[in-house]
């Protein structure tokens, strides 16, 4: 065992820092460091993606032959940590982290040749069509229908919670091509041009007043069968592959540590109840310390998972444990942020940050009251409630671990 980074890894870290220092503009840094939720502004994220594309760093997890970096898991971890610390926005995950792996693993040569380069360059901006009104946690019960029409499928149905569908020109969908004994059978993974006739995107407004999610209505949308990834009826396999692709390469701790650093710095600048600084307040500093302790435990857990994955071992409970613990800590940190904001925890001032989509609630056009860090707190607190719901609720994740434990 050895807990230290190697000399090569430390050198890589320096290279990454230098690249970030050289390429990040103030505007890009603001769009990454002042996010009001986990969602970056699509336009800003694309601008950053173009810079990464020129360097060949858009898709660290992809194989080199498709445009990946060939980095080790440790290098990917370092990249993620330094990227967040420097304030760069995240690249939209729907293409590179979700649809890309599905095409790499199950797509045809034509699909790989056409879609992967456009995904890397940002020419195609992707959204996801999975959940439906009656199919959330129970995704396999999905009903969006795709009828066989010779060389086309004709798709009719409704999808929910599609992040940035309003900004996307392509979408990957799970649709039902057959009904059978098991709901997982007869599901097909389909790539759909979002400019197709019969598609209507309706904005969903979040409790923070932002339009990031959308409903997608599909009414007789004709999709060439050439856009099926994998075999017709075998979409569940593709969807599962996609989920497992990044195993060992996902980490919560770096972002959580940086959030805590920022809150601690901010708490050193604002008053506490007893006249001193908030960071000198025993209750507050104890709560920050506890969060740091919990993040430290998660960090080593993530390093262990990284080591296992590097050795080809994928303990099944790992992604669920990381998702539960990571999102719970993420949410607790937004609670600390609210405490640090004091009375400004009540103020609605999205203009102090950079939203991941159009803001639909009334707010001041520019300028804001109180410190900027305080203005961000309620936006993040409200938005982060989604973390324990999306990507499989934390209740569902606990069910998964319970099954693995043989319960």
């Amino acid at each position: 065992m050895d807990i230290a980074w190697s000399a090569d890894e430390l050198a890589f870290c320096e290279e990454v820092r230098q690249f970030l220092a050289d390429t990040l503009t103030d505007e890009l840094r603001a769009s990454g460091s002042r996010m009001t939720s986990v969602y970056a502004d699509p336009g800003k994220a694309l601008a950053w993606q173009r810079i990464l594309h020129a360097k060949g760093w858009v898709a660290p997890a992809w194989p080199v032959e498709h445009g990946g970096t060939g980095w080790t898991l440790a290098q990917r971890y370092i990249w993620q940590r330094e990227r967040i610390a420097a304030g760069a926005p995240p690249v939209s995950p729907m293409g590179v982290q979700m649809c890309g792996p599905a095409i790499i693993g199950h797509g045809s040569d034509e699909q790989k040749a056409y879609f992967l380069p456009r995904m890397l360059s940002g020419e195609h901006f992707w959204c996801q069509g999975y959940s439906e009104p009656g199919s959330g946690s129970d995704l396999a019960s999905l009903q969006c229908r795709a009828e066989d029409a010779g060389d086309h499928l004709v798709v009719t149905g409704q999808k929910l919670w599609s992040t940035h569908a309003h900004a996307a020109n392509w979408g990957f969908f799970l649709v039902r091509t057959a009904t059978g004994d098991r709901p997982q059978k007869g599901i097909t993974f389909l790539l759909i041009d979002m400019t197709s006739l019969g598609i209507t995107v309706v904005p969903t407004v979040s409790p923070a007043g932002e339009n990031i999610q959308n409903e997608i209505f599909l009414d007789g949308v004709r999709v060439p069968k050439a856009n099926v990834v994998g075999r017709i009826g075998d979409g569940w396999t593709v969807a599962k592959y996609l989920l497992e692709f990044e195993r060992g390469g996902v980490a919560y701790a770096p972002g959580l540590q940086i959030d805590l650093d920022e809150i601690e710095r901010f708490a050193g600048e604002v008053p506490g109840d007893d006249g001193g600084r908030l960071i000198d307040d025993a209750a507050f500093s104890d709560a920050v310390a506890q969060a740091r302790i919990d993040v430290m435990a998660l960090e080593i857990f993530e390093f262990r998972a990284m080591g296992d994955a590097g050795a080809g071992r994928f303990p099944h409970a790992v992604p669920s444990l990381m998702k539960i613990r990571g999102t719970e800590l993420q949410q607790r940190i937004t609670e600390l942020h609210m405490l640090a904001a004091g009375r400004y925890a009540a103020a609605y001032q999205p203009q102090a940050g950079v939203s991941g989509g159009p803001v639909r609630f009334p707010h001041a056009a520019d300028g804001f009251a109180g410190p900027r860090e305080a203005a961000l707190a309620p936006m993040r607190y409200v938005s982060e409630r989604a973390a324990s719901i999306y990507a499989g609720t934390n209740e569902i994740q606990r069910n998964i671990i319970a099954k693995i434990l043989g319960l």
Partner: protein
Amino acid sequence: MDFTFTDDQRQLRDAVQGYLQRNNGFSARTKVARSESGWSESLWRGLAEELGLLGLFVPGDLGGASADSVTAMVVMEELGASLLVEPFLETAIVGAAALAASEGGEAELRAIAQGDARFALAWAEPEARFDRLPRATVARRDADGWRLDGTKSVVTAAPVATHLLVTALADAEPALFLVEPGAAGVALQGFPTIDGRRAADVTFTQVRLPISAPVVRGAEAIERLLDLATAMLGAEALGVLRRMLDDTIAFTRDRRQFGQPIASFQVIQHRLVDMYMRLELATSAVYRAVLSLDAAPAERMRAVSAMQVTVAEACRFVGQNAIQLHGGMGMTDEVAVTHYFRRATVIESEFGSADYHRRRFAALSRAV
């Protein structure tokens, strides 16, 4: 001991509930909250004229009802259940109580009862977080009266108010001043709050006030007024919490996944039971606080701080889990529960965070 409501209180509850269902329904209320002004004049007039509600704490000879605090608690709970955005607490509770305790103020009290006045209470300072007493806002005596200087942060309802009540050190003694928002030297930086209300940071620069401007004097009188406000906010929270619990029970019974209502899963049931227990304990804490408002200062303050901690934790637990159990729907503006969640979030620290009140409680307990 008796924890039952009188017939009059029950009738008042029904009348308020009925009026708000007719005039402050979810979509009407949301429209008002998102409007330019942020409040509804017709609703406000109705509260005064149809229900006589704005004169709740105004003496009878000035057109009010001279109601007791238990009656006010009943009203506040219903306003919470309806998510009223208009400044009822600031006007009919805080404004009326402050002026009723002062000399003079008859004109303002009449205006409150008639629906012609809207108050805002400016107490928190950027230099002092949740400290209930003024530190850096100062009123100095001069030949004509007073000169007020200082800044107040996140003053709820200030942009819609006709009267500001401002805490300040008057010759080193805490006092509460009545200030016109339009007076020379008063500057507002306004913004909406996450619960759909309006607030502002308010700066006072050499504001000239008449000699009669202090309506309340002394630290205990200000603490008492803020304790009343806190207890009534707790009563409002009960309406907010009850609605979140009811809505979440209804949703989980209706929502089906894996072929059955999600309310049939034990993990969901236990969560709902914990939410229910928080509500009942918060209700109990509010009763104690409201029934202690006229007790000796230390007992009153302990009861109110204990209540605020209990209510704040209930708001957080019930609010977060109401969202969680609504799943994706809990992350949309479409369902009412997310609006209640935002109000609950503001209530958590409107008059001081749970940490602040725990510390205040501990200090008072040591002193006993």
